């Protein structure tokens, strides 16, 4: 975890206070635990899809769910690195709860963290609306897909299958990291529980 640069970044009032760090970690762990409870879904889908060789679709169908912590923490703590930290910690939770990925989850967490952070970076940490969220969704899908081309051998698939996987992943990410995140942020905004 190289948060050193993030901690020192920002000349004005830094958002990286002890409280905010704990807040990001807690939100990441909460979401990590909620997904972990949905882990049977992944296993079930994989079992069903394996005989027809379509198991990667289980991965892509649920991708949005795994990439939710990033946009969520990015929206709540609006500063450089918060989406990365949230997403990375969310993935690490699975390692310690005993997920099926092992060290793979750490690396996926790194990749997904950078992926969702990039969207906020491209909008200069200024657009905390539908545009900023969509930028984050876009970078998440593209970066994680590129990573799966290498890691999970997607690059050996034919083009139609690849397109199918990409579209599936985009829809999944759009629904979970996009629509659902937006709804949660709206609830938070209305409750005035935190100054967004």
């Amino acid at each position, binding site marked *: 975890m190289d948060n050193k640069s993030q901690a020192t970044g920002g000349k004005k009032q830094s958002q990286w206070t002890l409280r905010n760090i704990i807040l990001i*970690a807690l939100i990441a762990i*909460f979401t990590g635990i909620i997904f972990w409870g949905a882990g049977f879904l992944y296993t079930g889908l994989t079992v069903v899809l394996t005989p027809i060789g379509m198991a990667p679709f289980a991965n892509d169908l649920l991708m949005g769910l795994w990439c939710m912590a990033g946009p969520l923490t990015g929206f709540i703590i609006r500063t450089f690195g918060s989406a990365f930290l949230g997403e990375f910690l969310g993935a690490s939770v699975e390692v310690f709860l005993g997920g099926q990925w*092992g060290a793979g*989850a*750490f690396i996926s967490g790194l990749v997904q963290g950078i992926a969702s952070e990039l969207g906020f970076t491209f909008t200069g940490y200024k657009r905390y609306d539908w545009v900023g969220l969509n930028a984050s969704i876009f970078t998440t899908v593209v970066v994680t897909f590129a990573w799966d081309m290498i890691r999970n051998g997607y690059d050996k*698939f034919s083009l139609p299958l690849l397109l199918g996987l990409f579209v599936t992943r985009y829809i999944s990410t759009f629904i979970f990291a996009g629509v659902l995140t937006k709804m949660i942020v709206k609830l938070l905004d209305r409750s005035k529980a935190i100054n967004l």
Partner: protein
Amino acid sequence: MNPGMKLLLVMLIALEISFTQSLVVNCILIAVSLVYILTQHVSMKALFGIIFWPLFPAVGLFVSQWLYGSAGIHFAWILFTRIYGYVFLGATFTLTSSITDLSLTLEQDFHLPSKFAYGVLAAFNLMPKIVEEVQIIKTSALMRGEALHFWSPKLYFKSILSSIQWSQNLAEAMTSHGFVEDYPRTHYKVIRITALDWILFVVLFIIVQVLLFFIRY
């Protein structure tokens, strides 16, 4: 071995085998990790878990690559062993190291600001309470005739409300115990990176490079 160094080594190797395509090296890494895990007296249940659960994604990837991949069955086996490689490499760390030692060494030896090391550690120590809290949120919603699922915004909303409250409490508790942000600390438990750690790290890393260089199958 120092937990920070161990994690770094494991991540580096895992990252490397994501790019390389050597079935034999993957198998060697799995075997060596397994032997190491066995010498560390881990529970049979944990061992069973790391063998059984990865079977689903590994077989899934294998079959799809076998049926639809352009690189044939050898590549399918590489992906299969790669999944197990990740899990076993990861297990050499997760089954033998504590998260407390990890954050201590990250702070003391890797110069992670202490507010990150202790803040994240404090949050992780609440993990059992968080599992409980998710259950409480779901149950209390059920009592009002409302079922919350992982796709319900309300479930996350209430989780975040708890997080806001808890983070405030934790931060205040830490401050009142004398924790000052961005201020040098003394340590009750000192963790150092020893010469042996460095030697092990470098030697193991070089061995993996040599193996990957010479064994291309």
